[in-house]
């Protein structure tokens, strides 16, 4: 009976943020902030407690299908948690914002899009809510109204529209291939249908590019480093933590990953391209990121870099269909871990700007925890993700790739050190909303514990994480980076004369 209840409540829960728009009016100012906080909670509850199900609504659109299954549950939980925390932080920024109604409305619409696309099982629903999230998200990017924000918004929307065109092309060609009449195929039907067909590679490539704009694939990533610094901090957090995962999720649903293990190598070109682009993203983004001056810019490049790793894994899943389930589990684990950790780091930027009397050292110490998680330090969620990834790489046994992934940890460590440096420069102990502090602490706790609560098939057991090999793997990248930083400062930089007080520059 509970199962029935959850199934019936799924659509209202997903559309709940959009329904809250009705309560978003100028005459109820106090309510607006609470709308941001509660909007994702119904979906969170169902995602946590419900069993797997599928739901069809034949009279809507061209017939829609929604559901909860092993591939979207973890992402839904992470997404809803992140949006709720971000909503809590955003709530305190509303008073004094001249455009708060617009902000709240577009926030709710973006959230609706994000949630429902994760639950979508057919092409039209996915496309609809992906478009909703993309277009409504524009409003969050340009919210501050500065010239930089407008420029970032322009690049964002141009790339988004081009991506939508590629996506539509892929879906049209795919629907013509696997469907009959004007009907809209299910996502699984599409991915299975691509496997055996001549045009399958073309269609899969079109979909890869269309979704890749959102996922920040190298070459389509231009909007990311521009959009993150200019958006309000909670919006940046959900952008990096949840929204770019929508592109990744799309790949997992439409690409023929082992649905039919006998693709006969037809999709190898795409798989190889994905691996290469992923590796390029992982390193090039890091190299650009370590020269950025603002903390949010560093984090943006870090997101591109991390998404590059996930792109590599997806490409490998395409190339090695026999291990596809393990790869998908690893990708999901990585995505959840990254979402929570990156969210915490973004929230931390907001906190550092108004740290309410906490000292610079304390702020950096607290934020070092999600940063270490991202690097893959021992006992963190990152370590679990990295170990899973390593095991899979050993199985496919491509030595260059294993080497590359090892050094990717160094790249991430370098970015995190730069983040710490930038944050120290932006540090400001002035008073600020207590909600920001609460959000940061909650996010940090979730980063460290959350991934263990998310049921994923390939989460390694405790024991493997205590092995000496894993512990060393978690420590040496950061150690190496710190060593390099110390050497650079000693040999190539003149000693700084500290004329300012403890709190340094204010920009």
């Amino acid at each position, binding site marked *: 009976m509970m199962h029935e209840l959850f199934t019936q409540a799924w659509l209202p829960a997903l559309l709940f943020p959009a329904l809250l728009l009705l309560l978003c009016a100028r005459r109820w100012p106090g309510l607006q902030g609470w709308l941001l906080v509660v909007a994702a909670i119904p979906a969170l509850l169902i995602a946590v407690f419900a069993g797997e199900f599928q739901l069809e609504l*034949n*009279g*809507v*659109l*061209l*017939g829609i299908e929604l559901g909860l299954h092993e591939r979207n549950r973890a992402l839904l939980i992470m997404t809803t948690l992140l949006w709720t925390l971000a909503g809590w932080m955003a709530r305190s920024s509303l008073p004094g914002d001249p455009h708060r109604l*617009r902000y709240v409305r577009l926030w709710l619409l973006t959230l609706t899009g994000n949630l429902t696309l994760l639950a979508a099982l057919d092409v*039209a629903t996915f*496309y*609809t809510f992906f*478009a909703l999230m993309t*277009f409504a998200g524009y*409003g969050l990017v*340009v919210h501050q*109204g500065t010239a930089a924000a407008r420029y970032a918004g322009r690049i964002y*929307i141009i790339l988004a*529209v*081009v991506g*939508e*065109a590629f996506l*539509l*092309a892929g879906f*049209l*060609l795919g*629907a*013509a291939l696997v*469907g009959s*009449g*004007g009907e*809209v195929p299910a996502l699984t039907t599409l991915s299975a249908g691509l496997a055996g067909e001549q045009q399958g590679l073309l269609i899969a490539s079109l979909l890869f590019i269309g979704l890749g704009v959102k996922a920040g694939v190298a070459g389509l990533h231009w909007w990311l480093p521009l959009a993150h610094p200019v958006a309000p901090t909670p919006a940046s957090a959900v952008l990096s933590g949840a929204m770019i995962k929508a592109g990744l999720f799309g790949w997992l649903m439409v690409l023929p990953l082992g649905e039919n293990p006998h693709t006969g190598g037809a999709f190898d070109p795409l798989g190889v391209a994905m691996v290469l682009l992923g590796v390029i993203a992982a390193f090039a983004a890091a190299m650009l990121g370590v020269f950025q001056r603002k903390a949010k810019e560093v984090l943006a490049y870090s997101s591109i870099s991390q998404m590059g790793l996930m792109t590599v894994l997806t490409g490998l899943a395409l190339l090695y269909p026999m291990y596809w389930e393990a790869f998908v589990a690893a990708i999901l684990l990585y995505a959840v871990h990254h979402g929570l950790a990156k969210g915490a780091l973004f929230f931390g930027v907001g906190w550092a700007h108004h740290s309410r009397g906490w000292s610079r050292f304390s702020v950096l110490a607290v934020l070092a925890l999600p940063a270490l998680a991202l690097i893959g330090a021992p006992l963190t969620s990152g370590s679990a993700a990295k170990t899973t990834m390593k095991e899979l790489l050993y199985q496919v046994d491509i030595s260059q790739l294993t080497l590359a992934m090892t050094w990717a940890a160094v790249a991430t460590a370098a970015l995190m050190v730069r983040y710490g440096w930038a944050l120290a420069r932006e540090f400001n102990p002035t008073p600020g909303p207590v909600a920001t502090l609460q959000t940061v602490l909650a996010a940090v706790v979730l980063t460290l514990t959350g991934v263990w609560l998310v049921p994923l098939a390939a989460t390694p057991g405790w024991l493997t994480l205590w092995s000496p090999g894993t512990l060393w793997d978690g420590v040496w990248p950061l150690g190496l980076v710190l060593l390099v930083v110390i050497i650079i400062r000693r040999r190539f930089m003149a000693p700084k004369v500290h004329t300012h007080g403890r709190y340094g520059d204010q920009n």
Partner: protein
Amino acid sequence: MSMLELNFWLPVLIMGTSLLAACGIFILPERRPGLRILLNLGAALTKIALVIWVLFGVIDQQLYETRFTLLPGLDFILRVDAMSLLFTGLSSVLWLFTTIYAIGYLEDSPGRSRFFGFFSLCVTSTMGIALAGNLFTFLIFFEMLTLSTYPLVVHRGTPDALAAGRTYLRYTLGGGAVLLVGVALLYALTGDPLEFAETGVMHDLAPELFPWLTAIFFILIAGLGVKAALIPLHGWLPVAMVAPAPVSALLHAVAVVKAGAFGIVRVVYNVYGMDFAFQLGVLLPLAILASLTIIWGSVQALRQTDIKKRLAFSTVSQVSYIVLGSTLFGPIGTIGGLVHLLHQGIMKVTLFFGAGNYAETLGVKNIQQLNGVGRRMPWTSVAFTIGAFGMIGVPPLAGFISKWYLGLGALEAGMTWVIGVLLASSLLNSAYFLPLIYRMWFKTAPAEWPHERIPDGRLETSGWLLWPTLATALFTVLAGLFAASDLSPLSWASLIAVREYLP
């Protein structure tokens, strides 16, 4: 069917409601607005009631036909079939909304009696075009449409309006003459009364006639293409934007442009028939012409700074989707073109209503003046945003459904290049609609509007102007959101397509 049956008279009755309204309005003195409004709205509602009645009949495959023999071999036929109901239904519903809108728009302006009289005549002509059962009857009402819309275009009486009216007449009368030549040639060649039949009437003609028939096809398309704004015959459309907003809404969404497109659809499906047209090889050139119009219209729209001119070129582009759909061999492409006839009508009328609201309430006519208008007129701007996203083809709005079917239809017909045209058109649509939406919602309003005629009260503008705008915007959403249900435009278009391909 004898003259004693109701089914004989129903088509005439449907036309008659607006004809009687026109006569009544011309007789009424100028200073009786209340009575005039009553007459207008009463006639519109009666017409919708009649259309709903015949709708159920047509689903049951009942026959409604008015037939008079004017000359030996030439009948005047008004017939209600699935295809004519498509256009009739659209026209009658949008006539109601446009009438309400026009009442509000022209409040206190001179010449309303004349305006509404010709307005009703225009709708009568449109009904005639929709209900025509053969090319001869079609031609009669086609010309009548030109003559009844001219006074609407020049309504304001300014030198600009008169010049626009002259251009309009030149194009449309020229097109009508070409159409007459085409119809006469066809009649002379085949000796056939050229009644519209569901799969075309030319199956049994001798092969020696084929080259002639191909030439006549293009003559007919040229004649109809003026009204349907196919390039290079579209020149009248942007010029006619000088007319008041309700006229633009009517011309571009309901009457003139749709009549041209509907005519082309009739020629392809019900005169030549899909199979025969495919055999003759005329579909591909028409598809290419339609595609060029789609791209050209959008490119020109980018260059306009006047809101209504931008919408005019958007119409040039979008109506060709309907023509394109008629060239895609196969039921899916057919459905795409036909359903877009309805969807484009609803979306375009929403956009023109919105533009008219901005002009009438705030004096905003230019794109640069749209800054911050979302705060002053939020509901109109929401409707405009819906219409714009619908044009771009974002789901779940109506425009997406049309694009989806057109795309799949193109693939079914083996014309993959059409997908490129559709995508390029979507990108161009985004390029000229998104900046408007940005200005509305994300820029700050000026200290003073150009000419604020209607102050901000309980409603942001006059109720006569606001409610039709919201209603058509709502239809845009519903037509897409519930496209799979039995009551949607999509279902109706599918019904027609089935009857076209499976007699």
